[in-house]
């Protein structure tokens, strides 16, 4: 029977965008900026599908400032077939872009509360838009704390910006590394160590992003500090081909990470994360 299904736009159609600026953050991490005169509106935590001609498409979180949508920013680690080719691209090269997709960090919900941002490694990239929003709307929030863990001082992402935030008197920024030489004056260890002595209230909102193992330990540490899982949000990473809930790859239990996530309130996804290989 012919149905009254809506006539749909091609969900896979992408927009060509020229890389306006390309910069290297770390040995294997780089940032592309695209100028979008009409603006590329997104909510912090959302991602785009980025396409390299003839190679393939990957989901990459948006790292730019939500207040300046005319500049679309993606920070990318070269780890797979597509991102290794991206690593060789430069300003003037063209990527295909479609998005933004997925759920966002709950920045409206956290208004009036103290906010703890806890992140490790490249997990800072999807949190950067949220941090920029928090700092731009400083008066809307209580205390703001950013705890960042990296493998070594040389692996600290957005080093200049972290330093700038750290220089502000209206937020607290702490960094910790797994290993360091004598020129490192900060603490050494895992990011959860930075919770020691930190004032925490059960009502605080926590934004968490990093390797899954880091997030597990962070939640465990926050459990011990009395922060309920209903006040913790995480961003997850799964295989995605379509980004819009059609292809099935990103399923985690009953959830499609691409459209129900990637940002989840932790209590809602915790059962699925506790089953090995779900």
């Amino acid at each position, binding site marked *: *029977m*012919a*149905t009254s*299904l*809506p*006539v*749909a*736009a*091609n*969900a*896979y*159609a*992408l*927009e*060509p965008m*020229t890389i306006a600026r390309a910069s290297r953050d770390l040995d294997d991490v780089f940032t592309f900026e695209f100028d979008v005169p009409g603006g590329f509106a997104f909510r912090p935590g959302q991602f785009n599908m980025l*396409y390299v*001609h*003839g*190679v*393939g*498409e990957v989901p990459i979180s948006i790292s730019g400032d939500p207040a300046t949508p005319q500049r679309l920013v993606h920070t990318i*680690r070269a*780890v*797979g077939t597509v991102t290794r080719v991206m690593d060789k691209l430069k300003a003037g090269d*063209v990527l*295909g872009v479609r998005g933004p997709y997925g759920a966002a960090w709950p920045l409206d919900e956290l208004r009036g509360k103290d906010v703890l941002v806890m992140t490790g490694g490249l997990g800072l990239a999807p949190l950067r838009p949220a941090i920029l929003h928090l700092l731009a709307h400083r008066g809307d929030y209580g205390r703001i704390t950013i705890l960042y863990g990296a493998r070594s001082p040389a692996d600290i992402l957005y080093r200049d910006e972290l330093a700038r935030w750290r220089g502000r008197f209206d937020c607290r920024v702490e960094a910790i590394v797994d290993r360091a030489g004598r020129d490192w004056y900060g603490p050494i260890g895992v990011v959860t160590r930075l919770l020691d002595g930190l004032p925490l209230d059960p009502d605080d909102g926590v934004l968490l992003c990093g390797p899954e193992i880091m997030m597990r330990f962070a939640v465990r540490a926050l459990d011990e500090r009395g922060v309920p899982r209903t006040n913790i949000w995480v961003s997850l*990473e*799964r*295989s995605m*081909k*379509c980004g*819009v*809930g*059609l*292809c*099935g*790859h990103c*399923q*985690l*239990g*009953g959830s*499609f990470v691409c*459209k129900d996530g990637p940002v989840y309130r932790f209590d809602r996804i915790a*059962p*699925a994360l*506790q*089953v*090995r*290989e*779900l």
Partner: protein
Amino acid sequence: MLDLNQRVVLDRAGFAALLQALADDGHALVGPTVGDGAIVLDAIAGIDDLPRGVGDDQAPGHYRLRDRGDAALFGYAVSPHAWKRELLPPRVPLVQIRRSATGLAIEAAPAPTRKVAFIGVRGCELAAIAIQDRVLATGAHPDADYAARRAQSFILAVHCGSPAGTCFCVSMETGPRARGAFDLAATELLDGEHRFVIEIGSDAGRAILARVASRTATTDDVTAATAVTDHAATQMGRAMPTAGLRDLLMANLEHPRWQHVADRCLGCANCTMSCPTCFCTSVEDTTDLSGDVATRTRRWDSCFTADFAYVHGGSARPSLRARYRQWMTHKLATWHDQFDSSGCVGCGRCITWCPVGIDLTEEVAAIRAAPAPRSHADG
């Protein structure tokens, strides 16, 4: 003028005329036909291409055609092919991207403009189409290609009178009588005159039917038609009680049975390929020899492949145990969370076409017989 609630009878010539009327109306006819030792869904020219007197024997890992010794055109249960071959084809070009000095030119694949009449859709298959409608065409980002194909489909359902040994549509409440959105539905009657009792499901169905000579069904015709599906309902080769099934599986994600089935499973993906509701796809790029023109193609994928859940560093489900569990719990449990229905219609294809005869009804029964004492999922 035919009434939507009216039932009419077509003889064999009338049924042939109905197919011709559909073709004359500009539909490509796709229906069951014998090919490669199986009943396949393929282009048919008319009634002579339908299987004649052919039945199918189906059991776990077993499929054989048999001679029924009668004139039945729909005397089999289900084809290994599902209608998703028409609506969600195995390979569909999505978008073409041409590289030039000035950048990338994107050209979306044209929407399909082919009217197709689906001949002989079973109740289980109609239910499967309704499920894929929900998955692919009703979300925030509907699949344009699917929606276009679906909008141009005409469905001539044929109620099932010959369930196979792997069928359990009665358990899943999808058959043997087709319900839901058909244009026309037929019951093939073989006692006495070879004839078809036709129900009308839509205005499009009524319009086509009005073009062929028919007679009004008698009470006897309607009774005989009901008897066909009533009898079929007693011939289910399998049963799968569904009460509490979602919660049972979600509470048993660490059940030892998953390893038991993984030890038998080959990870071949036959179950997902033959399943009428499995919708997972991947997108791949092919480039022409110049390297300038890339075509992005959507193709069927399967949660049984090693790279299905691959993220940098490895697969989220390296073991077959996890992959089988993903498939079965998605089909029978999390599908409810996502789409408010089961993902299983009881067609039995995954049982028949599993080369080692893994039977999901048996796997469910094993878990039901010895559920885990406590839920790991709640922990």
